[in-house]
């Protein structure tokens, strides 16, 4: 369902050309659980951003659900992100002035989903992550683990097919981190494709498959 075909992505840092992704080929099937590992600067996040259509590639083809999404316009890529991809970030990226429920509702609001339908889906998402009693709290009134759960709720409320998690436990203590991982794995068991960027070996090894990155290349 995800197919990366000889992807190149280079950055200019000063006068130097840095290879973020260097001839990356990757096939990911529906419902897979993959961890992407490697040292800092090895291209893990670039790979994730490429799959998440946040970053454009210099060369190569990217197929999502058998559609070539490499050359889509900005607006169409935004639509693909909205409909198929969910993001979970290390720093949660919740909007501080909105309540948990409003943060979760945000993707639906942006997509123009009707008020009633939106409330219903937000309620469900919050319930499945045991956040119902936190619905009207703002992020600064929540613990780190709760914030990340709100972020996960926001990522899955649009019912995406792929969930991209970039170091989702990086800012959490061990217990809440495990809590978050368990939730992500549960979602994976329900059928969502899960890509997890981490440099924690213990977490990485829980995945079905590990993709090792080094200097922008996928290690065999």
């Amino acid at each position, binding site marked *: 369902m995800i197919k990366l075909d000889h992807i190149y992505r280079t950055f200019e840092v000063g006068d130097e050309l840095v290879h973020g992704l260097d001839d990356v080929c990757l096939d990911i099937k529906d419902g897979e659980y993959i961890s992407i590992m490697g040292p800092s600067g090895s291209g893990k996040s670039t790979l994730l951003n490429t799959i998440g259509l*946040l*970053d454009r590639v210099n060369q190569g083809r990217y197929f999502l659900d058998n559609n070539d999404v490499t050359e889509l316009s900005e607006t169409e890529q935004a*639509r693909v992100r*909205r409909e198929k991809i969910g993001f979970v970030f290390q720093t949660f990226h919740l*909007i501080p*002035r909105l309540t948990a429920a409003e943060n979760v509702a945000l*993707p639906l*609001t942006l997509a*123009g989903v009707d008020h009633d339908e939106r409330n219903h889906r937000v309620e469900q998402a919050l319930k499945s992550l045991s956040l119902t009693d936190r619905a009207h709290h703002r992020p600064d009134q929540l613990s780190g683990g709760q914030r990340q759960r709100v972020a996960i709720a926001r990522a899955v409320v*649009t019912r995406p097919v792929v969930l991209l998690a970039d170091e989702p436990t990086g800012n959490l203590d061990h217990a809440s981190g495990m809590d978050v991982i368990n939730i992500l794995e549960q979602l994976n068991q329900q059928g969502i494709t899960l890509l997890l960027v981490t440099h924690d070996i213990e977490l990485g090894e829980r995945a079905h498959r590990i993709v090792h990155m080094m200097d922008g290349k996928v290690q065999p």
Partner: protein
Amino acid sequence: MHFNDVIQFAFHAMQGYRSRTYLMLLAMAIGVASVILLTSLGEGARLYVTQQFSSLGTNLLIVLPGRSETTGGMPPIMGETPRDLTLQDVAALQHLHHVKQLAPIVVGAAPVSYQQLEREVMIMGSTASLFSVRQLKLSRGQFLPELEITRASPVCVLGYTLYKELFGNVSPLGKWVRVSEYRCRVIGVMEEEGMSLGMDMGEVLIMPAASAQTLFNVNSVFRILVEAQSQEVMDRLKQDVIETISARHDGEDDITVLSQDALLSTFNRILTALTYALGGIAAISLLVAGIMIMNVMLVAAAQRTTEIGLIKAIGAPRKQIIILFLTESACLSLVGAMLGLIFGLAGNWLLQRYFPDFPFQAPDWALWAAVGVALSTGILFGLLPARHAADLDPVQALSGR
């Protein structure tokens, strides 16, 4: 995205950054309020002048000595003094067809005293017909007696303020007051009245024109007020007046005849232009407020970089981010404009309360223009920050760079 969701998002953002929101609203409100107050001042001046002129009486021609028109020739080097208007000229005009009545005016200042009290006041010499030409009102006694224009008589009528100052609560009728070195008997007191054409009618002493001429030792008349029988004959009468005086002045066309309407429309034009100018000056403050909106929204785009990155990541295209940011600046300027409208109208109300004589009145167009300009500057100056936000690269924005 639904319209009310966009609005709600904008208001959430406004609430999220309170101090900057309040400052912005204040700037906008001051801009709009100053447009309203300044145009109200200009419009008030226009209405004031209009009122003053209509209090002068209707169908009025004002005759003054000298020509105020330029003829395009050499300026008179030797000094060409116009011939004075005299009471004989006035008497000649009196017999013209279409003249309903007329009143000469002689003015000057002189000390007026009663017992130990003395005041320097404006002396106005005229005739009995001044009463109806100027539409004056008496509070007691009678006005100047019907005499021949050239006859003097030692009588006078006091303005209300002057009467209070000289006599207090004592009845002045029949008392003799001293005007410079002459004496005259008070026969009437005028009603309390406001300013009229910059002359406080409360502080004048009115006496027969011939008496005033003796008092000031002059033969000339300051103005002649001529009331026509009707609006239609004004032009004819004006021509007749010019011809009559010219015949009396050796064929010299040396007077100026103003009609009240012409004066009024000139003042109207000048003061309407003034109102526009004041509105324009105040609109500059709206422009400044617009630039402030731009500034603040640029800072907001910088502060909310990660938020913009996130919104992009969860599926908002460029266009939607522009809409969100534009809506925010439009809401800021709209709410600011509404506050300004309230401040402006409240200020206007206070001015009306404290200066009841002056008709402060913001014209309708100014209200619309102020709000319209506020809204359009808000949107116009919101465009740059909105595009700036929309052009952010989502990966860099999310990492807070």
